[in-house]
């Protein structure tokens, strides 16, 4: 029974072992499970679908090469998402992209019937664009990937308490920027 619970909780543990051994199909199973999460996190960091795709593509190459170094398969998801987020930051750094003031909100967001909602989306996009990429990374990992403060600390190289403080300050700043205070 215990092993069954283990399988349910960690269905990709076997896939990791197989992928480490060079099994492409097993690697595809891992991609199927995590690609979407990684892309969403990267998009929030880059604000650009193409750059997000680049980051995730680079992340998969790193993952394939370094998967054997992953000691705990249960940590696969935070590890992959962290690698992707780091690639997104690296790409932004290489591009030296200047945050823009106005960002076109994507069609899928604009299709909603609520004009106030559209304005809110635009405000959020602009507020995000004004943040440092490291801060966007923190928000993406916390609110899109659902990292707890320990995972955030591992991913960002800060202490868990330092991460919480940073996150609290970020929330305060966003509340002001979005007129929610």
């Amino acid at each position, binding site marked *: 029974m215990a092993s069954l619970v283990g399988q349910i909780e960690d269905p990709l543990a076997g896939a990791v072992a197989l992928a480490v051994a060079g099994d*492409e*199909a097993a*690697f*595809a*199973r891992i*991609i*199927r499970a995590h*690609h*979407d999460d990684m*892309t*969403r*996190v*990267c*998009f*929030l960091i880059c604000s650009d*679908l*193409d*750059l*997000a*795709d*680049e980051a995730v*593509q680079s992340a*998969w*190459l790193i993952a*394939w*090469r370094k998967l054997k170094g992953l000691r705990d398969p249960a940590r696969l998801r935070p590890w992959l998402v962290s690698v992707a987020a780091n690639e997104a930051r690296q*790409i932004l750094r*290489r*591009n*030296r*992209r200047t945050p823009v003031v106005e960002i076109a909100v*994507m069609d*899928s*967001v604009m299709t909603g019937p609520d004009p106030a909602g559209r304005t*809110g*989306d635009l405000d*959020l*996009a602009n507020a*995000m664009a004004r943040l440092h990429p490291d801060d966007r990374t923190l*928000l*993406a990992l916390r*609110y*899109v990937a659902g990292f707890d403060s320990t995972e955030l600390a591992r991913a960002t190289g800060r202490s868990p308490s330092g991460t919480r403080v940073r996150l609290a300050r970020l*929330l305060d700043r*966003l*509340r002001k920027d979005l007129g*929610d205070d």
Partner: protein
Amino acid sequence: MTDRLDFETRLAERLGARAAIASRPFDAAAIAHATVTSDARRPFVRRLVWPSMRPGLALLILAGLLAIALLAVALAGALHVNPLQPPAFPIATGNGWIAVSANPMDVGGGENGDIYRVEVGSPARRIIGSDGDGLAQACPRFSPDGLWLAYGEATASGAVTTFRGNWPVTNRAVAIVRVGRESLTLDDVHKHLAPDGGPIVCPEWSPDGKSVAVIVGPELWIIDAKTAATTVIPLTITAPGKPEFEWSRDGSSIAVAQAVQIRVVHVADQTFRLIPAGDTPIESLQWTAGDRGIVFAAAGGPRGDSSVVRVVDPRDRSGTTLTLDPTDPAVRLDIHSVVVSPDGTRVAWVEGSLRCTAGSCAGLPARLMTRALDGSPAVELPVPVGLGGLQWSPAGDRLLISSTDGLVSVGLAAGTTPTVLSHGDLNLEWSWDEVTWQPLFR
């Protein structure tokens, strides 16, 4: 505190909704295959392990290495070799014959794409392909030494319904054939099959002539011209049509037009840099002398509805516009076919224009423009025919124009008479960039 928690909850929802924009269908198996293939073909790097040794012996080895390095520097100085300079490939001294891939004149019938030899004073002769062979050939490219011809080949599609770039051809391949200097003898053939389905592939030779590069779907393939050993580099190309890419002059990198950016792929280790090139898609990528700049055409002008030729420095990403905006505010330019001379010091382009007044627009005659990259003003070269594709002669002394009117070369020197190579007997409507001129070395 409750307000803060409420805000955090709402923020999480809104961030999640924004991030959901990036959720799109994907093919996990294809991503896995591309990743694994790319990794398997990366250069093998052996880790250097220093053996344990006595300090005295280590110092002796270091001194020996230092002596060898000093000797190498001295030798390089004596031979006038600067190791920091990229390898210099010779520029042709003469212009040989011209190969063209052309479609049948009867649009909607016949087979698509055979390769013809074109030269002054003779009618065009078909040299590759024949009626009924069921094969399409396109994009011929002479090797830098002029001794080989590479081209794309595929099972011919049916009737021509749109421009060649969107043909849904199958059994795609790259072919490389040996070409005699004085004859048409094709005495050696290498073929490398590419996956089925998609536009015919267009090869580009590396400057050293040792390999050709093609873009197949979202991948850049670098194929050894002798052994067919292939390196696959994943890309993220989303633009439809024929993807544009260009080898750097030292052969170390390939620039790929990727929407509004230039992706510079370093061939040796497959790393890449993205160079922002503005807000609109770019085309006509070309490298300048010493790989100090990448020239391209993009939208621009005062209102952003015109087009410009720009050059960007791939090292610091600084850019310069090489064209002037029209003085008449009602005129907007439509620039295409930007080409850099073989020595990398001049650029030429086709400058069409459109005058728009009171809701209607009228096209003006296109002009052939050229200018040096040193800052001198652009000059117009008179051309007796319509302007389509543009190409420099291998020796850099003439420009070759292809259009539905035919194939004409014009000299850069004042008073040079244009040379008509074909009077429209070849259908070059879709063949603007499918002309190649054999380099000669005397």
